[in-house]
């Protein structure tokens, strides 16, 4: 299992660095896009928002975190679906199912390996964004915990989409619409909600983890362990659901002879 993870890590890394210009362009585009988004947001908010006072700075930091998380989740979802589609076209997808490792294990290890690369990209992008906007986020080690739960539900979603891709081949349109849905999931201020709205937000994928990350990184509030418990349960449930759906889709695809023929 470890050998396979290292092989996946090596494969992902080689594919990433073989065309360095492509990688650099990816970081550049995401950073520039954010910069314009940020400028646009400041313009729409008008001169009433003062970014030099503490409330304004907090709002800016929340915006930065929201955007970075949005990039990360988008990366995860598009990477999973794009690579599945590309592999189906080049014939390597069927080869992955010819392994004595279960397909879901191969794809999970592959996801973890891909994540390591993605995190490097995100770190570079985040560094650039902080440099451009002057935002000063804090990075307490505890933030890794909600980050992991956030990624668990994101990968749950990615596996769900991967399963759909195995069966229906075309999920690009779905992914396009999902981008805005992700903004809503990540941006919903679960930490400020009450009543039914809070309950719904706590059950939504990624939302509780995103709230915890905002607290930790932008507001320098300590980790709310009860909230983390909820975020963890949320991550476990969505990841489990995604993996189950993927395995179910694999069985159905084999039943219907759909693993190839894109």
């Amino acid at each position, binding site marked *: 299992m470890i050998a396979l993870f290292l*092989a996946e890590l090596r*494969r992902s890394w*080689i594919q990433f660095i*073989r065309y360095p210009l492509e990688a650099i362009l990816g970081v550049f585009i995401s950073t520039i896009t954010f910069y314009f988004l940020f400028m646009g947001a400041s313009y729409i908010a008008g001169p009433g928002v003062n970014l030099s006072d503490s409330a304004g700075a907090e709002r800016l930091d929340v915006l930065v975190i929201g955007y970075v998380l949005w990039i990360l989740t988008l990366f995860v979802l598009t990477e999973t679906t794009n690579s599945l589609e590309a592999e189906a076209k080049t*014939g390597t997808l069927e080869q992955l199912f010819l392994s*004595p*490792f279960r397909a879901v294990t191969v794809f999970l290890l592959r996801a973890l390996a891909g994540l390591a690369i993605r995190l490097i990209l995100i770190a570079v992008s985040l560094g650039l964004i902080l440099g451009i906007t002057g935002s000063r986020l804090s990075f307490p080690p505890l933030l890794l915990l909600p980050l992991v739960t956030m990624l668990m539900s994101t990968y749950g979603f990615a596996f769900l989409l991967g399963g759909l891709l195995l069966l229906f081949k075309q999920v690009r349109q779905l992914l396009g619409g999902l981008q805005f849905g992700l903004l809503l999931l990540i941006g919903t201020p679960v930490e400020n909600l009450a009543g039914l709205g809070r309950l719904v937000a706590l059950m939504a994928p990624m939302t509780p983890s995103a709230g915890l990350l905002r607290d930790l990184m932008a507001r320098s509030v300590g980790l709310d362990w009860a909230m983390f418990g909820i975020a963890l349960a949320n991550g476990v449930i969505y990841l489990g659901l995604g993996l189950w759906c993927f395995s179910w889709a694999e069985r159905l695809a*084999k039943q219907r*002879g759909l693993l190839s023929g894109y």
Partner: protein
Amino acid sequence: MSILQVQNLGKTYRQGKQTIDAVRQVSLSLHAGEILAFLGPNGAGKTTTIKMIAGLVRPDSGQVRLNGLDPHRQAQALKAVGAVLEGNRNLYWRLTPLENLEYFGVLRGLSRRVARQRGLDWLGRLGLEHKRHATVQTLSRGMQQKVAIAVALVHAPKLLLLDEPTLGLDVEATQTVKAIVREIAASGCAILLTTHQLDIAEALSDRVAIIRAGAVIAEQPTRELIRQFSGQSYRIELEEPLPAALAPRLAPFDLTIADRQLTLHRGDLLYDLLEKLRPLAIQEIKKDTADLTEIFLKLVQEKTT
């Protein structure tokens, strides 16, 4: 020793309200070192059968045993199989041949060290050492196919599934792939080969199975099948035209005579005829032998009508 056992395999697909019997009651077996040519027209059920053997398509009925294990229930069974499937090259195009061999070796259960060593061995055997640092996308189609075959064999499987391995290759690359297939079989690996190039099937296979409309309509050792479909006649070519005086003495032999060429329709009379021809110089004696293309067309068309 039987590496592959397929019994009564069946698969039906549904398209709307229509059902299509893709594979019906297919049974096959394959022993170590044996090459089985699995032939049939397009849409006959070859690829579906191969994918059911590889665990990629689940059969509706029947069973597959790879080295005694069921690939649909026991993932370890897949260690015994390697496959080069139709169409694409089954490789990561941004990786080099050695990187592909290493990755797929680990994916099939080898350690990285062993996968790398075997990868290097294969590149040497295939004459691709000089391309070990080139990405797959820069290789010729023939080289890509060689790498794909090596990738399918890096974990030393007992069964190799080859779906159209020479499709789109030039003459030289085709000859190389044929030589590799022979070499692999000689090392004890069983090979299930599908191809539309029947001369290749004839040259390589020990046995032939012909499938049509999802059912196997013939399965026999290649030589036996060819013998069965070959006539009993012999063609005898003389160095000089047959002397006219000799013709009456040959009347009982039911011969067709055309200048220097005699066709004997009863093979059992060959030696009697040769006695009568003595001392005429004979250039060639050839038995009328069918080829696999004729046999294939005959069988497939016969069953159609």
